[in-house]
C-alpha cells in the first residue's frame, strides 16, 4: 500500500504540474483539496482522468469522488479496493 501511495504522490506532483512541492513532502493524511495540497475543481477532473489512466479505475460519481479525494490515504484505499 505504501508503494501505491508514493506512486500517487509522484503522479499528482508531476501530472498536475505542482510547483515547489516534493512528492515526499505530501503527508498521507493531508487533505488534497483547498487548505491541504491546494487542489481545485479543475484538478479534480484531471485527477479522475489520471486515476483511470494509470490504474484503470473509474471514479463514477461525486459520492465516490468525495470519499476518495479526501487524502492520499483514502485515494490509495479506493484504488486498491477496485483494481
Amino acid at each position: 500500500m505504501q508503494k501505491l501511495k508514493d506512486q500517487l504522490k509522484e503522479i499528482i506532483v508531476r501530472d498536475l504540474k505542482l510547483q515547489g512541492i516534493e512528492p515526499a513532502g505530501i503527508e498521507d493524511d493531508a487533505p488534497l483539496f483547498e487548505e491541504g495540497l491546494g487542489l481545485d475543481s479543475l484538478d479534480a477532473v484531471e485527477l479522475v482522468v489520471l486515476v483511470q489512466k494509470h490504474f484503470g479505475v473509474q471514479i463514477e460519481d461525486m459520492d465516490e469522488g468525495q470519499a476518495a479525494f479526501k487524502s492520499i490515504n483514502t485515494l490509495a484505499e479506493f484504488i486498491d479496493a477496485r483494481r
Partner: protein
Amino acid sequence: MGKVKRTPLYLLEALGHNIFYLFLLLFGQGGAYLLLKPVIATYLLFSRKIHRNSACYLKRRFPDHGPARLWLDTYRLVHSFGQVLVDRGWLGLRRKAQLRGELIGGERLLELVAEGKGLVLLTAHVGNWQTALAHIRGLEVPINSLMHYEEEAVAKHYFDLRDGTAPFRIIKSDGFMGGMIESTAALGRGEVVTIMGDRYAGGPWAEVEFLGGKARLPSAAYSLAAATGAPVAILLAAKTGRRSYTIKVWDDFYPATGARHDRQRDLGRWADRFAKSLEGYVRQNPYQWYNFFDLWSQ
C-alpha cells in the same frame, strides 16, 4: 427540500401559470401568444426590476438606443422569452404538437461523437434549449446535461409534461466539485455532456471580451474537455417562426491547457471563442438571448 411558502406573490404566479395552461388547452399556441402581449405590457409597466435586469445586456447590444427604444427592446426580449415558455407548455400539453427543427452542422456533431472521446456540447440560454436537446437524440450516444437546481427543475417540469422521459440524464452542478466527476466519467464512456457556457454561478471562470466589455464566463467546460481529450462544440438554438427553429453548430475545437500557471490564460482563450460565437448569435438574434444578469459587473 423545504416546503414552498405560499405567499400572495407565489399564489398570483401560480394563478398566472394556470390561466396560460387554460388558454393553451382552449385556444392552442396562438391563443396563448395573444394573451402574452397584454400580460407582458402590463408587467413591463409595473416592474422596474425587469427593465433594470434586461438593461445590462440590451444597453450593450443597442448602445445607440434611447429610453423609449430600450423600453421596446425590453418588451421584445421578454415577449420572445414568453413565447418560448408558451411553446414549452404547448408541447407538453398537446401530445401532437410539434415544432419543426433544422439542425445546421449535424454531420460535424456525428463526426465528433464518432471519435469516441466524448463531446462537450456548449450551449446558452437562447431559443428553446430543451427542445434543442430533444432534437439531438439522433446522436446515438447517451446525453448528459450538467445543470444547477433551477434549470434542472425547469427541465424536469418540461419533460414531465411532455412524455415523462427526458432525452438526457441530469448531472447536478451543485454537488461535490460541481458535477465535474460525473461529467468526466460520462466523457470517458464516449457520451455527450451539455453545459451552459453563458452563466457564471461559481467555480472556475474566465474574463472575456463580450459586447464591448469584460464579462465573466464559466470555464470548467474547457478544463473538462482539455483533461479528457474531448472536443467542444458550440450549439445554439433560435426560434425562426411560430412553429420552427434552427439549431446551429457555431464552432468546434479541442481545448488544451499548458503549464499550471498559464491555465487561467489558456481557459480564457477558449472561453473567448465561446464568447465570439455567442456575440455572433446575439447580433443575428438580439431578442433571443435570455440573459437577465449583469455578466459585466460580476
